[in-house]
């Protein structure tokens, strides 16, 4: 136990120092997550939200919450891993008495921590540009929302591990991630609240893992009525379903790995 604690502290500390070194780059990545804010602009200008029974305030809360959720659930594992596998940097990692995925997971957590000031800054700018649009969630909502963001992040991470293992078979597996991004973009609630979907499409979306990645945490943060137990249960169920698949693929891929550059 104390070993795990020591490793976690060393990993997180070193990765956080690394991320701080590249803070300008991370600021730019944070800036590239403006899509929910652009969609907020379009939705508040159209009557579609009101027609679906949402007040303008609900819409602005929803998209601002979705913006925060998106900022802290970004997963870029596949792009780093593809490069590491192609350049042979994965080989020394495999020799260490620690599964390489933990290192990548720690890097993601550190990147999230580095993002915090930039996201706050962007929210302040939004608040100055449109006074009264920001709000303060109740402590319970905030706590549950943050938990839901981390749960959604883990679900996205596990899902991407599955695609990432394809790097062992293909040199350009990152292109496959672009395909996975499409249902994530349109079914997760990132560009349109799920309440505005036609009922059939909504049912279809809820049967996929995607709405739990944005819609559920965003609605929690925005103070919408939401079934908390169902949300966390769905995320846990998807994780439990996807995790064994990723383990099997990882083992099979590792056997194929020929240590390029060795």
């Amino acid at each position, binding site marked *: 136990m104390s070993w795990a604690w020591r490793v976690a502290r060393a990993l997180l500390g070193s990765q956080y120092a690394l991320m701080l070194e590249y803070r300008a780059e991370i600021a730019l990545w944070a800036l590239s997550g403006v899509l929910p804010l652009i969609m907020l602009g379009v939705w508040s200008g159209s009557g*579609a939200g009101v027609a679906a029974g949402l007040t303008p305030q609900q819409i602005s809360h929803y998209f601002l919450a979705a913006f925060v959720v998106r900022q802290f659930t970004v997963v870029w594992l596949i792009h780093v891993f593809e490069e590491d596998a192609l350049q042979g940097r994965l080989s020394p990692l495999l020799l260490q008495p620690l599964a390489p995925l933990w290192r990548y997971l720690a890097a993601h957590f550190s990147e999230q921590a580095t993002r915090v000031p930039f996201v706050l800054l962007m929210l302040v700018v939004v608040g100055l540009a449109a006074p009264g649009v920001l709000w303060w969630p109740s402590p319970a909502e905030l706590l549950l929302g943050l938990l839901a963001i981390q749960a959604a992040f883990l679900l996205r991470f596990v899902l991407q591990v599955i695609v990432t293992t394809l790097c062992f078979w*293909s040199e350009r597996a990152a292109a496959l991630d672009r395909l996975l991004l499409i249902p994530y973009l349109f079914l997760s609630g990132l560009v349109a609240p799920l309440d505005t979907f036609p009922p059939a499409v909504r049912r279809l979306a809820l049967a996929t893992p995607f709405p739990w990645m944005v819609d559920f945490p965003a609605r929690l943060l925005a103070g919408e009525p939401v079934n908390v137990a169902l949300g966390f249960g769905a995320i846990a169920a998807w994780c439990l379903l996807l995790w064994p698949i990723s383990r099997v693929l990882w083992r099979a891929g590792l056997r194929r790995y020929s240590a390029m550059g060795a």
Partner: protein
Amino acid sequence: MKRYWRSLRCFWGTSLAAELEYPLNAAIEFVSVLGNLAGSLFVLQLLFAGGPSLGGWSWSGALVVLGLYTLLDGFTTCVLQPNLSRIVSHVQTGTLDYVLLKPIDSQFWLSARTVSPWGLPAVAAGLGLIGWALAQGGPEAAAGLRSLGAVLLPLALLLAALAILYSLWFVLAALSIWFVKVWNATEVLRYTLVAGRYPVSAYPPALRLLFTFVLPVAFLTTVPAEALLGRGSALWAIGSLLVAALCLAGSRLLWRFAQRSYTSASS
């Protein structure tokens, strides 16, 4: 001039041959374009659920805007992304030295060295969507295309949009001469330009100003779409051509200035 044509043929021939080594990419790109288009149409339909117009634009008008956005996105994937995202690594590793020493204009080399065929599905989809929207909108939607001059105007504005888009990309990529680590600055641009999927009048006034004067998204899709629909105003057309000329000249000047500040890697 002839030398440039010959070089361009050589550049693009070799890079096409290299890209075609990955046939699976064609399938992925095709599916991705179709999926993105279906998703965008779905969201646009949701936005139209509240009324017959979006910021004063009819359904077929908004489709023309979306088609132009898809077209420009394909152009980005074909030419801008593969070339200009490489400037950063040239600066980082110092291989920009070799580029500057070549007996050919360095901006031309950096902007046209490779081409990727994977943007072509998006270009085709964009053209198809524009044609479909104009046909669907009935005779008055295609009013802009009745005379020769009215066909040339949208074409000129589209060329202006391409020039503006190119200049934005080039300027951001050239900034790496000073701030080496900006390889994702062009990604920021790509994600912000998503705003061009919708007519600029669909946004609140503050964002409208931002998308016209700071980040000229309005000139990329809205202005050419208005000309296609026969609603183009002289003021916006002249403004668009002027902005394009300014952007191109700006990118040229910036590159000249950047070369003077370039000190090569490890020196």
